């Protein structure tokens, strides 16, 4: 009982200094947790994707289309259960800052995504309305849309202003599902475009393939691509996850920077904490000498400093973790649809605990080493 008591008493001796240090650690651990959550949110799209879905696109790049008749040919590839397709629309809602993903889809597309939960009557209403649209819950909340609202989008790839009737709002089956997407009928888009620009009709951006056996994904991808080898539009087929990770890889440089920066805050707080412990130890050299004179070992003196440092760091860390949750929620609300999935994961909390622990240990190293080495005579003289 003696050691914990002594450590707590020591820590509370300089209340202002200790509380400032704890505040510093709270800020650092919270910032660290939020940055890690941002990085995870970036990967969330890939995490939430199914391994039983493949995506086929033009081998040149996503900006090139595929012919409509590929749907039949893909269907004939062994192992393919269902085929649907979608086009990236890239429209602007009111002003350019309001970004959210919009796709023109073939109606069975939603059947490929059982994790998008729609009310049956709303789904039916969407199916029968040629200009109908489906939006995710988070997206609808962000702009205050209700079922029945009209939503105008200004096309950047497909010229003109397009007005859709919101017929259904989908919910995610769990927290990892992206609720910020906007879907409407590919048929409608195709009809209008074909009338205006005949050459741009009957073109598909991406085919989505459901396969019977996820373990056959690699073989089926190869078979699909082999079907269209040496044609005018060669294809590239990959699992949905690889497809999503491809996007993330393109912005990886920024992601790596955010990750690197999240460690910088830990180093900063390490310096602050080390300073606190150095000051604390310096003031107590006399006491340490006294303890040593009474027969306590060098290691015991070092242990006291380590315990105090780790204790302060963990208290700050715990408060920081508690603060991360409401802050992440506020952050998610403020960012709206920029990050479709945004929540603090268990790994993040574990990393935060680990970071606090490391800060506590590293900060105590030099002071503990100095205190353990202090000679009794010098230490006693310091107080005199």
């Amino acid at each position, binding site marked *: 009982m003696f050691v914990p008591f002594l450590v707590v008493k020591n820590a509370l001796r300089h209340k202002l200094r200790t509380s400032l240090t704890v505040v510093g650690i709270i800020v650092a651990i919270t910032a660290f947790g939020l940055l890690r959550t941002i990085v995870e949110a970036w990967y969330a799209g890939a995490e939430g994707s199914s391994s039983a879905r493949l995506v086929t696109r033009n081998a040149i790049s996503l900006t090139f289309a595929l012919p409509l008749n590929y749907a039949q040919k893909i269907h004939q590839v062994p192992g393919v259960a269902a085929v649907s397709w979608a086009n990236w629309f890239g429209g602007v809602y009111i002003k350019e800052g309001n970004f959210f993903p919009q796709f023109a889809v073939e109606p069975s597309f939603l059947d490929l995504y059982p994790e998008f939960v729609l009310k049956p009557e709303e789904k039916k209403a969407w199916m029968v309305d040629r200009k109908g649209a489906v939006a995710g819950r988070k997206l609808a909340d962000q702009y205050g849309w209700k079922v029945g609202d009209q939503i105008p989008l200004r096309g950047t790839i497909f010229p003109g202003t397009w007005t859709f009737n919101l017929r259904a709002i989908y919910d995610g089956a769990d927290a990892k599902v992206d609720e910020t997407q906007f879907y409407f009928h590919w048929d409608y888009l195709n009809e209008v475009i074909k009338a205006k620009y005949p050459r741009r009709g009957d073109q598909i951006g991406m085919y989505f393939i459901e396969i019977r056996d996820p373990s056959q994904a690699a073989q089926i991808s190869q078979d699909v691509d082999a079907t269209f080898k040496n044609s005018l539009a060669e294809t590239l087929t990959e699992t949905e996850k690889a497809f999503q990770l491809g996007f993330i890889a393109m912005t990886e440089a920024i992601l790596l*920077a955010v990750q690197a920066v999240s460690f910088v805050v830990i180093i900063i707080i390490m310096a602050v904490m080390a300073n606190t412990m150095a000051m604390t130890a310096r003031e107590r050299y006399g006491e340490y000498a006294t303890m040593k004179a009474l027969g306590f070992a060098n290691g015991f003196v070092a242990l006291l400093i380590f315990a105090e440092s780790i204790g302060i760091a963990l208290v700050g860390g715990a408060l920081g973790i508690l603060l991360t949750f409401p802050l992440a929620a506020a952050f998610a609300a403020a960012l709206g649809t920029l990050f479709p999935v945004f929540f603090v994961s268990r790994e993040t909390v574990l990393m935060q605990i680990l970071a606090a622990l490391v800060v506590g240990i590293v900060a105590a190293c030099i002071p503990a080493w100095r205190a353990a080495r202090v000679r009794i005579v010098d230490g006693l003289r310091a107080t005199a």
Partner: protein
Amino acid sequence: MTNIPLAYIARNLTARKLTTLLTAGGMALVVYVFATVLMLAAGLTETLVATGSPDNVMVIRRGSQTEVQSGVDRQSAAIVESLPDIATGADGKKLISKEPVVLINLPKRDSGKPSNVVIRGATPAGLELRPQVRIVQGRMFQPGTSEIVAGKSIAGGFRGAALGETLRFAQRDWTVVGVFDAGRTGFNSEIWGDAEQLLQSFRRVSFSSAMFKLADPGRFDAVKAEIENDPRLQLEAKRETKFYADQSEALSKFISYLGVTISVIFSIGAIIGAMITMYASVASRTNEIGTLRALGFSRAAILVAFLGEALLLGLTGGLVGLVGAAFMQAFSISTMNFQTFAEIAFSFTLTPDIVLASLAFSLIMGFVGGFLPAARAARMKIVDALRAA
């Protein structure tokens, strides 16, 4: 009012080296993050602004924000070409370049991960309109062949894009016969080939953009109105400088907002570090403060002295952080620009504004951290301070 000498203030910082080192080190890291992020945003903006020339006009389809999304058919391009305001080159031909621009997926040289690279169909006029482009290895492509030249960043960063290598896309093998350097512009992140060859192999019938030089740069507004009001055209015209500057907007805003937010949060940690140090500095010198006051130095002089010490601490950290950040200028970064969906390489650029902002930021940290401790020092009563020994 007599001031306490600066030497006294500065010497206090050297009295406890470890503490000074740790506190200034924390601040240096914050300033380093602050400066590098701003340098990154500045580098991106500078690259894209330098890409355009103010005398050139870029024409794309109305509503499309980038060349890749745009389409300009031959008929519309011919109408634009017939405008009388287009400058003529040495050979008497009009300086207008009608270019197809597409994105292709290429694997990065080091990681093998694919990214989108811009392929531009270049024309002789286009080369004349962009005098900053110089061939640094090999030679220019021959018109009418499957030869291409790669920008400096692409040649080094992507597989198959270096001199002598071949790339396969659109059912053809394309040989890289040259590498070009376009200074600090976005063209370094592009691949150029013959416009007609590219149109044919990608089965395109329309160009992506038309770019021309104005005979009289002052006539821009009139030309813009003429193009945009022509009922036969669904096009919009922008100065080339503005066209590229607009493309850097979202990414550079994103980088600087994120960076500044992060730095401000981090600075709380560093400010607390400074506060702890300064409180300790005040506490350990209570006696000295009493002596100074007894000697006749005013409360204000004490306040200034301790604030000066904190500011000096902040400035030291700021300078160290800034020197560290300055070294980052040797590096460049390559990432996807969300607006164009294409890869762009840019370097960290240190501008005078960033130097000033970073130093101001470090002084603010020192001031905020030092104010409360300095106020405590100034409020001490002479008798109490002298007795504190």
